[in-house]
């Protein structure tokens, strides 16, 4: 940019006027005001000057409307095509409404009658220069954000991890760049670290702070700091910023910053995964067959809200060939809005990417959305089920069974739009009975423990599988043998439906664990 932002008189102007007396009058007055004014007498010459010197070096064009060869509108058209940010002010002696309207439609900044009133000229020139500068600033900022977004996508898509894990990333920013980031770090030959962060907001500040936190974590981890301590450190860092008087705040008086994070540290020797979450969705671990479990608790407060950080940390055993899914709350929010499970969105997104197609549902997201899939010790198992639903239900909530079924049904319809109605019905009804049975019997004596439910889909053989686990001792007495026809007198219809609706059913742990398979075709 030429000159200081507020110094409008340092601007370079192009004056296009075929009448030499008028032109000299304008040049004199503009130079006296301090403008760098260049004069010419026709459209062709004006275009030549702009081409030679680059339109971007000018901040206003002052042009006569009526000239012998071409009109000011021809010049305006050329300017709009080559540098639409360059403001143009028209001069005319006609004073015709049609000319005024036409010039404004063409993008003119202002319009002055001849003979020109110097006071009006000054106001028009200042406004035109300010408009040019503002337009160009917006263009530069837009370009910078787009550059940042490209850098963010490049960083997120360049993920060599080492020989023990493969990371596949899916990123859908709300704007060009946003506050969602993922990175990973190999700490030793056997220890890998994965970090997902989400800073409030969808702007450059959010992107910068998220990347800054990722850098701090990497640096501190490499020097041996425990991840929990690092979370605490950054929490304090953000809380201190919040506490400052507004005039001392670094990130803007009206914008307090918080950061949600989930981290997974995988030890391949110990065969463990330690997950930490702070205000973020808990990662999901997929066992080699596809059975899924949450690693820790979702939610809590993000870093930066309270002096004591809310951090959930848990360690789990892992197996070779398993996978971990991590996502930011943008996916969670979109799933909630659509009444589908986040794992269903994750599945659809992965399938869309694999098929090279768009996943237009993401365009409706109100937040950045980032999903990371980490396959441990090699590629994902083709025989594994993709989880579509993973829920935990408590006995006290048993009256919500219809709401739960609505989520299952909508998730299935999104993931498998061609699912036959009979298969959907059978899965819904058998799952309903199994979940109600788990809650009414399995959870009755230990209501503090939930029953878990999940649905998985395996493309290889077009199979849907529903799992129900309860914390009770089992229901062996119900499971043995085939009921006589007289069973009409007994209240075991639920069990009959669980046994007969699926293609195959397996009871384990005395019936506290039920696995039901359904052929999609």
């Amino acid at each position, binding site marked *: 940019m030429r000159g200081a932002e507020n110094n409008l008189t340092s601007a370079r102007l192009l004056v296009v006027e075929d009448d030499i007396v008028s032109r000299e009058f304008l040049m004199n007055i503009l130079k006296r005001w301090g403008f760098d004014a260049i004069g010419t007498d026709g459209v062709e010459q004006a275009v030549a000057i702009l081409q030679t010197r680059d339109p971007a070096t000018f901040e206003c064009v002052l042009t006569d409307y009526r000239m012998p060869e071409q009109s000011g509108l021809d010049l305006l058209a050329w300017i709009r095509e080559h540098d639409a940010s360059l403001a143009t002010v028209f001069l005319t002696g006609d004073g015709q409404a049609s000319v005024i309207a036409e010039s404004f439609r063409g993008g003119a900044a202002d319009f002055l009658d001849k003979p020109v009133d110097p006071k009006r000229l000054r106001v028009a020139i200042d406004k035109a220069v300010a408009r040019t500068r503002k337009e160009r600033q917006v263009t530069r900022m837009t370009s910078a954000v787009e550059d940042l977004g490209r850098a963010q996508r490049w960083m997120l898509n360049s993920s060599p991890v080492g020989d023990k894990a493969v990371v596949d990333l899916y990123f859908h920013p709300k704007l060009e760049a946003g506050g969602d980031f993922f990175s990973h770090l190999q700490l030793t030959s056997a220890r890998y670290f994965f970090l997902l962060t989400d800073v409030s907001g969808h702007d450059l500040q959010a992107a910068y702070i998220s990347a800054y936190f990722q850098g701090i974590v990497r640096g501190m981890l490499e020097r041996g700091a425990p991840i929990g301590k690092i979370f605490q450190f950054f929490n304090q860092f953000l809380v201190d910023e919040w506490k400052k008087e507004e005039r001392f705040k670094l990130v803007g008086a009206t914008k307090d910053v918080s950061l949600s994070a989930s981290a997974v540290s995988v030890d391949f020797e110990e065969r463990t995964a330690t997950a930490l979450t702070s205000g973020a969705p808990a990662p999901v671990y997929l066992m080699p067959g596809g059975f899924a479990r949450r690693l820790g608790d979702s939610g809590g407060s993000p870093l930066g809200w309270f002096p004591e950080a809310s951090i959930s940390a848990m360690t789990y055993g892992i197996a070779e060939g398993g996978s971990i899914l991590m996502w930011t709350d943008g996916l969670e929010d979109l799933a909630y809005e659509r009444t589908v499970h986040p794992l269903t969105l994750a599945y659809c997104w992965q399938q869309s990417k694999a098929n090279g197609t768009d996943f237009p549902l993401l365009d409706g997201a109100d937040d950045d959305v980032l999903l990371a899939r980490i396959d441990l010790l090699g590629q994902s198992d083709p025989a594994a089920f993709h989880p579509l639903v993973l829920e935990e239900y408590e006995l006290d909530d048993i*009256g919500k*069974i*219809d709401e739960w079924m609505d989520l299952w049904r909508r998730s299935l319809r999104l993931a498998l739009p061609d699912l036959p*109605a*009979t298969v959907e*019905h*059978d899965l*819904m*009804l058998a799952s*309903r*009975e199994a979940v*109600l049975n788990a809650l009414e019997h399995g959870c009755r004596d230990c209501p503090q423990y939930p029953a878990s439910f999940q649905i998985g889909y395996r493309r290889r053989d077009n199979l849907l599988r529903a799992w129900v686990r309860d914390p009770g001792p089992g229901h062996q007495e119900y499971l043995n043998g085939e009921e006589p*026809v007289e*069973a*009409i*007198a007994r*209240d075991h*219809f*639920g069990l*009959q*439906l669980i046994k*007969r*609706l699926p293609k195959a059913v397996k009871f384990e742990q005395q019936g506290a664990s039920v696995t039901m398979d359904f052929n999609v075709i």
Partner: protein
Amino acid sequence: MEQIVDAEKKVLTLRLRGDLTSGNTASAQAIAALLQAARDEGRPWRNVELDLREARMVDSVGLNMIVAVFKSTQRGGGRLRLNYSDANVHRTFVFTRLDQHLDLVKV
């Protein structure tokens, strides 16, 4: 719910709304009222028709409700007839072998 009594034919028709499941409290209440009325003397019907044509799903709770109506009607020397339209509802009766006991009519 809609309840129609044909006193001449001694038939009570109960038209249920939506699925017959544990979540459908209106159906449960209607059937409970029917059973209570059956226990009272002087009811003007012997036979019962449950109209399930709106149901797309009948769960174990719904099946138990049907069985209760079936037993009640039997005790009174009458018959229970079930009208259904959805094939999956019929499959549910087959899988639970209730089709061997109930008078099922596709409408």
